[in-house]
Protein backbone atom coordinates (compact mmCIF):
# COMPACT_ATOMS: atom_id res chain seq x y z
CA UNK A 1 0.00 0.00 0.00
CA UNK A 2 1.36 3.40 -1.00
CA UNK A 3 2.20 5.90 1.74
CA UNK A 4 0.32 8.91 0.40
CA UNK A 5 1.04 10.99 3.47
CA UNK A 6 4.79 10.57 2.95
CA UNK A 7 4.43 11.54 -0.72
CA UNK A 8 2.45 14.67 0.14
CA UNK A 9 4.75 15.56 3.04
CA UNK A 10 7.70 15.43 0.68
CA UNK A 11 5.97 17.65 -1.89
CA UNK A 12 4.68 20.13 0.68
CA UNK A 13 8.00 20.33 2.55
CA UNK A 14 8.40 23.78 4.04
CA UNK A 15 4.76 24.21 4.91
CA UNK A 16 5.59 26.16 8.05
CA UNK A 17 2.35 25.98 10.01
CA UNK A 18 1.62 24.66 13.48
CA UNK A 19 2.57 20.92 13.51
CA UNK A 20 -1.05 19.89 14.11
CA UNK A 21 -2.27 22.07 11.26
CA UNK A 22 0.43 20.84 8.87
CA UNK A 23 -0.47 17.24 9.72
CA UNK A 24 -4.15 17.97 8.96
CA UNK A 25 -3.38 19.52 5.58
CA UNK A 26 -1.11 16.61 4.65
CA UNK A 27 -3.71 14.06 5.75
CA UNK A 28 -6.46 15.81 3.79
CA UNK A 29 -4.44 16.13 0.57
CA UNK A 30 -3.17 12.55 0.92
CA UNK A 31 -6.75 11.29 1.29
CA UNK A 32 -7.72 13.18 -1.87
CA UNK A 33 -4.90 11.59 -3.87
CA UNK A 34 -5.68 8.15 -2.47
CA UNK A 35 -9.30 8.48 -3.58
CA UNK A 36 -8.25 9.75 -7.03
CA UNK A 37 -5.84 6.85 -7.45
CA UNK A 38 -8.42 4.27 -6.38
CA UNK A 39 -10.91 5.68 -8.87
CA UNK A 40 -8.36 5.28 -11.67
CA UNK A 41 -7.53 1.75 -10.56
CA UNK A 42 -11.24 0.92 -10.76
CA UNK A 43 -11.19 2.25 -14.31
CA UNK A 44 -8.55 -0.38 -15.13
CA UNK A 45 -5.28 1.56 -14.95
CA UNK A 46 -2.15 -0.03 -13.57
CA UNK A 47 -1.09 1.15 -10.13
CA UNK A 48 1.97 2.90 -11.46
CA UNK A 49 -0.04 4.79 -14.08
CA UNK A 50 -2.79 5.68 -11.57
CA UNK A 51 -0.27 7.09 -9.08
CA UNK A 52 1.53 9.05 -11.79
CA UNK A 53 -1.73 10.54 -13.07
CA UNK A 54 -3.09 11.32 -9.61
CA UNK A 55 0.10 13.22 -8.79
CA UNK A 56 0.15 15.04 -12.12
CA UNK A 57 -3.51 16.05 -11.80
CA UNK A 58 -2.72 17.54 -8.40
CA UNK A 59 -1.44 20.69 -10.10
CA UNK A 60 1.35 22.93 -8.93
CA UNK A 61 2.60 21.86 -5.49
CA UNK A 62 4.52 25.09 -4.93
CA UNK A 63 1.38 27.04 -5.71
CA UNK A 64 -0.63 24.89 -3.29
CA UNK A 65 1.93 25.39 -0.51
CA UNK A 66 2.12 29.15 -1.08
CA UNK A 67 -1.68 29.58 -1.09
CA UNK A 68 -2.20 27.47 2.03
CA UNK A 69 0.56 29.33 3.87
CA UNK A 70 -0.88 32.70 2.90
CA UNK A 71 -4.34 31.67 4.11
CA UNK A 72 -3.53 29.79 7.27
CA UNK A 73 -0.78 32.08 8.53
CA UNK A 74 -3.24 34.92 8.79
CA UNK A 75 -4.84 33.27 11.77
CA UNK A 76 -2.12 33.27 14.39
CA UNK A 77 -1.92 30.19 16.66
CA UNK A 78 -2.33 32.37 19.74
CA UNK A 79 -5.54 33.84 18.38
CA UNK A 80 -6.84 30.34 17.67
CA UNK A 81 -5.99 29.18 21.19
CA UNK A 82 -7.75 32.18 22.66
CA UNK A 83 -10.84 31.50 20.56
CA UNK A 84 -11.00 27.73 21.09
CA UNK A 85 -9.68 27.38 24.60
CA UNK A 86 -9.42 30.37 26.91
CA UNK A 87 -12.52 32.26 25.85
CA UNK A 88 -14.71 29.15 25.96
CA UNK A 89 -13.09 27.98 29.19
CA UNK A 90 -13.93 31.25 30.91
CA UNK A 91 -17.41 31.15 29.41
CA UNK A 92 -17.98 27.70 30.98
CA UNK A 93 -16.62 29.00 34.28
CA UNK A 94 -18.89 32.08 34.27
CA UNK A 95 -21.99 30.05 33.36
CA UNK A 96 -21.37 27.43 36.04
CA UNK A 97 -20.75 30.16 38.66
CA UNK A 98 -23.89 32.01 37.58
CA UNK A 99 -25.77 28.76 38.04
CA UNK A 100 -24.38 28.47 41.57
CA UNK A 101 -25.46 32.04 42.33
CA UNK A 102 -28.97 31.40 41.03
CA UNK A 103 -29.25 28.23 43.15
CA UNK A 104 -28.07 30.15 46.19
CA UNK A 105 -30.66 32.90 45.57
CA UNK A 106 -33.38 30.25 45.39
CA UNK A 107 -32.27 28.97 48.77
CA UNK A 108 -30.82 25.63 47.64
CA UNK A 109 -28.10 25.05 50.18
CA UNK A 110 -24.97 22.95 50.33
CA UNK A 111 -25.22 19.67 52.21
CA UNK A 112 -22.82 17.95 54.54
CA UNK A 113 -21.74 14.48 53.53
CA UNK A 114 -20.80 12.27 56.46
CA UNK A 115 -20.88 13.58 60.02
CA UNK A 116 -18.25 14.49 62.55
CA UNK A 117 -14.90 16.16 61.94
CA UNK A 118 -14.42 14.57 58.49
CA UNK A 119 -17.68 15.96 57.09
CA UNK A 120 -17.38 17.40 53.58
CA UNK A 121 -19.62 20.16 52.38
CA UNK A 122 -21.08 19.36 48.97
CA UNK A 123 -23.29 21.70 47.00
CA UNK A 124 -25.36 18.87 45.56
CA UNK A 125 -27.84 20.89 43.44
CA UNK A 126 -24.89 22.64 41.80
CA UNK A 127 -23.01 19.38 41.32
CA UNK A 128 -26.09 17.82 39.71
CA UNK A 129 -26.13 20.59 37.09
CA UNK A 130 -22.39 20.63 36.40
CA UNK A 131 -22.35 17.77 33.84
CA UNK A 132 -24.64 19.94 31.72
CA UNK A 133 -22.15 22.85 31.84
CA UNK A 134 -19.27 20.49 31.11
CA UNK A 135 -21.20 19.18 28.12
CA UNK A 136 -22.07 22.70 26.98
CA UNK A 137 -18.43 23.83 27.11
CA UNK A 138 -17.38 20.68 25.24
CA UNK A 139 -20.07 21.19 22.60
CA UNK A 140 -19.15 24.83 21.88
CA UNK A 141 -15.43 24.01 21.80
CA UNK A 142 -16.07 21.09 19.42
CA UNK A 143 -18.08 23.38 17.16
CA UNK A 144 -15.22 25.90 17.23
CA UNK A 145 -12.93 23.17 15.86
CA UNK A 146 -11.18 22.27 19.12
CA UNK A 147 -9.19 19.05 19.38
CA UNK A 148 -10.24 16.33 21.87
CA UNK A 149 -7.81 17.65 24.48
CA UNK A 150 -9.09 21.21 24.02
CA UNK A 151 -12.71 20.10 24.26
CA UNK A 152 -12.09 18.28 27.54
CA UNK A 153 -9.96 21.10 28.90
CA UNK A 154 -12.79 23.58 28.26
CA UNK A 155 -15.33 21.30 29.95
CA UNK A 156 -13.29 21.01 33.19
CA UNK A 157 -12.03 24.59 33.12
CA UNK A 158 -14.20 25.76 36.07
CA UNK A 159 -12.57 23.14 38.33
CA UNK A 160 -9.11 24.11 37.07
CA UNK A 161 -9.84 27.78 37.76
CA UNK A 162 -10.97 26.90 41.30
CA UNK A 163 -7.76 24.89 41.79
CA UNK A 164 -5.76 27.93 40.80
CA UNK A 165 -7.80 30.10 43.18
CA UNK A 166 -7.19 27.63 46.04
CA UNK A 167 -3.48 27.40 45.34
CA UNK A 168 -3.25 31.16 45.43
CA UNK A 169 -5.69 31.80 48.30
CA UNK A 170 -4.24 29.50 50.97
CA UNK A 171 -0.58 30.55 50.89
CA UNK A 172 -1.79 34.15 50.71
CA UNK A 173 -4.04 33.89 53.77
CA UNK A 174 -1.37 31.95 55.67
CA UNK A 175 1.19 34.66 54.93
CA UNK A 176 -1.23 37.31 56.18
CA UNK A 177 -1.78 35.37 59.40
CA UNK A 178 1.96 34.95 59.90
CA UNK A 179 2.52 38.66 59.35
CA UNK A 180 -0.24 39.62 61.77
CA UNK A 181 1.26 37.26 64.31
CA UNK A 182 -1.69 34.91 64.59
CA UNK A 183 -0.73 31.28 65.21
CA UNK A 184 -1.15 29.01 62.17
CA UNK A 185 -2.18 25.42 62.71
CA UNK A 186 -0.76 23.68 59.62
CA UNK A 187 -2.61 20.43 60.26
CA UNK A 188 -5.88 22.36 60.37
CA UNK A 189 -5.00 24.15 57.14
CA UNK A 190 -4.16 20.83 55.48
CA UNK A 191 -7.50 19.34 56.59
CA UNK A 192 -9.43 22.33 55.27
CA UNK A 193 -7.47 22.19 52.00
CA UNK A 194 -8.26 18.52 51.57
CA UNK A 195 -11.96 18.82 52.43
CA UNK A 196 -12.53 21.92 50.32
CA UNK A 197 -10.42 20.43 47.57
CA UNK A 198 -12.76 17.43 47.42
CA UNK A 199 -15.95 19.50 47.69
CA UNK A 200 -14.99 22.32 45.33
CA UNK A 201 -12.44 20.83 42.96
CA UNK A 202 -12.38 17.04 42.71
CA UNK A 203 -16.10 16.26 42.75
CA UNK A 204 -17.11 19.27 40.58
CA UNK A 205 -14.21 18.46 38.23
CA UNK A 206 -15.44 14.88 37.89
CA UNK A 207 -19.02 16.07 37.26
CA UNK A 208 -17.83 18.50 34.57
CA UNK A 209 -15.64 15.84 32.99
CA UNK A 210 -18.52 13.36 32.83
CA UNK A 211 -20.58 15.92 30.88
CA UNK A 212 -17.65 16.83 28.66
CA UNK A 213 -16.79 13.21 27.87
CA UNK A 214 -20.40 12.30 27.11
CA UNK A 215 -20.80 15.30 24.81
CA UNK A 216 -17.55 14.48 23.03
CA UNK A 217 -18.54 10.85 22.61
CA UNK A 218 -21.95 11.80 21.21
CA UNK A 219 -20.50 14.40 18.84
CA UNK A 220 -17.81 11.99 17.60
CA UNK A 221 -20.39 9.23 17.12
CA UNK A 222 -22.63 11.61 15.17
CA UNK A 223 -19.71 12.62 12.95
CA UNK A 224 -18.87 8.97 12.32
CA UNK A 225 -22.42 8.07 11.37
CA UNK A 226 -22.54 11.04 8.99
CA UNK A 227 -19.29 9.87 7.44
CA UNK A 228 -20.77 6.42 6.99
CA UNK A 229 -23.74 7.96 5.19
CA UNK A 230 -21.37 9.93 2.93
CA UNK A 231 -19.51 6.73 2.10
Amino acid at each position, binding site marked *: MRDWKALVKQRLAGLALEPEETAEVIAEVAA*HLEDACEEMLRQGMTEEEAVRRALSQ*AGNWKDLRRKILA*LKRREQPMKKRIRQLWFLGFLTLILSMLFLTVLYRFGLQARLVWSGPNAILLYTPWLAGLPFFGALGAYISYRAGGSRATVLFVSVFPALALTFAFLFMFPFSMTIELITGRPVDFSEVATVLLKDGIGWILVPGAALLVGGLLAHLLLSARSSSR*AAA*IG
Partner: protein
Amino acid sequence: MIAPGIKRGTAELAVLSVLEDGPLHGYEMARRIEEQTRGALRFTLASLYPLLYRMEKRGWVRGAWETSESGRRRRCYRLTSAGKKKLAPIRAEWSALFLALKRLAKVSHA
Protein backbone atom coordinates in the same frame (compact mmCIF):
# COMPACT_ATOMS: atom_id res chain seq x y z
CA MET B 1 -13.28 24.82 -22.05
CA ILE B 2 -13.72 27.87 -19.80
CA ALA B 3 -10.80 30.28 -19.32
CA PRO B 4 -9.11 30.21 -15.88
CA GLY B 5 -10.09 33.81 -15.04
CA ILE B 6 -13.79 33.03 -15.38
CA LYS B 7 -13.36 29.72 -13.58
CA ARG B 8 -12.03 31.45 -10.49
CA GLY B 9 -15.24 33.41 -10.12
CA THR B 10 -17.41 30.37 -10.60
CA ALA B 11 -15.50 28.17 -8.16
CA GLU B 12 -17.24 29.48 -5.05
CA LEU B 13 -20.64 29.03 -6.65
CA ALA B 14 -19.73 25.49 -7.72
CA VAL B 15 -18.57 24.47 -4.24
CA LEU B 16 -21.54 26.03 -2.46
CA SER B 17 -23.93 24.41 -4.94
CA VAL B 18 -22.62 20.86 -4.55
CA LEU B 19 -22.55 21.22 -0.78
CA GLU B 20 -26.17 22.28 -0.83
CA ASP B 21 -27.07 18.61 -1.42
CA GLY B 22 -25.14 17.46 1.64
CA PRO B 23 -21.66 17.21 3.19
CA LEU B 24 -18.78 16.06 1.01
CA HIS B 25 -15.05 15.56 1.28
CA GLY B 26 -12.65 17.31 -1.08
CA TYR B 27 -12.19 14.57 -3.67
CA GLU B 28 -15.90 13.80 -3.94
CA MET B 29 -16.64 17.51 -4.25
CA ALA B 30 -14.16 17.91 -7.13
CA ARG B 31 -15.47 14.75 -8.82
CA ARG B 32 -19.11 15.87 -8.66
CA ILE B 33 -18.32 19.38 -9.95
CA GLU B 34 -16.38 17.93 -12.87
CA GLU B 35 -19.13 15.43 -13.61
CA GLN B 36 -21.99 17.92 -13.34
CA THR B 37 -20.21 20.54 -15.50
CA ARG B 38 -19.18 17.81 -17.97
CA GLY B 39 -15.53 18.56 -17.41
CA ALA B 40 -15.79 22.34 -17.90
CA LEU B 41 -14.86 22.99 -14.28
CA ARG B 42 -11.97 20.91 -13.06
CA PHE B 43 -10.24 21.49 -9.74
CA THR B 44 -6.63 20.75 -8.97
CA LEU B 45 -5.42 20.43 -5.39
CA ALA B 46 -3.94 23.92 -5.67
CA SER B 47 -7.27 25.40 -6.67
CA LEU B 48 -9.63 23.36 -4.46
CA TYR B 49 -8.09 23.32 -0.98
CA PRO B 50 -7.06 27.00 -0.72
CA LEU B 51 -10.60 27.83 -1.84
CA LEU B 52 -12.13 25.53 0.79
CA TYR B 53 -9.90 26.95 3.54
CA ARG B 54 -10.81 30.49 2.50
CA MET B 55 -14.52 29.66 2.49
CA GLU B 56 -14.13 28.00 5.88
CA LYS B 57 -12.45 31.11 7.23
CA ARG B 58 -15.32 33.23 5.97
CA GLY B 59 -17.68 30.87 7.76
CA TRP B 60 -19.49 29.66 4.63
CA VAL B 61 -18.47 26.02 5.07
CA ARG B 62 -17.31 23.97 8.03
CA GLY B 63 -14.87 21.09 7.75
CA ALA B 64 -14.65 18.26 10.28
CA TRP B 65 -12.79 14.97 10.32
CA GLU B 66 -15.13 12.04 10.07
CA THR B 67 -14.43 8.34 10.10
CA SER B 68 -16.38 6.07 7.80
CA GLU B 69 -17.43 2.51 8.60
CA SER B 70 -14.41 1.28 6.66
CA GLY B 71 -12.22 3.23 9.09
CA ARG B 72 -11.14 5.89 6.61
CA ARG B 73 -10.74 9.42 7.89
CA ARG B 74 -11.89 12.15 5.58
CA ARG B 75 -12.38 15.86 6.21
CA CYS B 76 -15.98 16.52 5.25
CA TYR B 77 -17.31 19.96 4.50
CA ARG B 78 -20.85 21.11 5.07
CA LEU B 79 -22.62 24.36 4.35
CA THR B 80 -23.13 26.64 7.32
CA SER B 81 -26.17 28.87 7.62
CA ALA B 82 -23.93 31.78 6.45
CA GLY B 83 -22.98 29.70 3.40
CA LYS B 84 -26.60 28.95 2.63
CA LYS B 85 -27.40 32.67 2.85
CA LYS B 86 -24.45 33.48 0.57
CA LEU B 87 -25.50 31.03 -2.12
CA ALA B 88 -28.67 32.88 -3.13
CA PRO B 89 -27.03 36.26 -3.94
CA ILE B 90 -24.13 34.56 -5.76
CA ARG B 91 -26.62 32.63 -7.87
CA ALA B 92 -28.55 35.84 -8.57
CA GLU B 93 -25.36 37.66 -9.60
CA TRP B 94 -24.36 34.92 -12.01
CA SER B 95 -27.88 34.66 -13.45
CA ALA B 96 -27.88 38.42 -14.02
CA LEU B 97 -24.48 38.18 -15.71
CA PHE B 98 -25.57 35.30 -17.98
CA LEU B 99 -28.74 37.20 -18.92
CA ALA B 100 -26.74 40.32 -19.70
CA LEU B 101 -24.31 38.35 -21.85
CA LYS B 102 -27.17 36.65 -23.62
CA ARG B 103 -28.74 40.02 -24.43
CA LEU B 104 -25.40 41.34 -25.58
CA ALA B 105 -24.93 38.36 -27.84
CA LYS B 106 -28.38 38.91 -29.41
CA VAL B 107 -27.52 42.58 -30.01
CA SER B 108 -24.26 41.68 -31.66
CA HIS B 109 -26.00 39.00 -33.79
CA ALA B 110 -28.67 41.47 -34.93
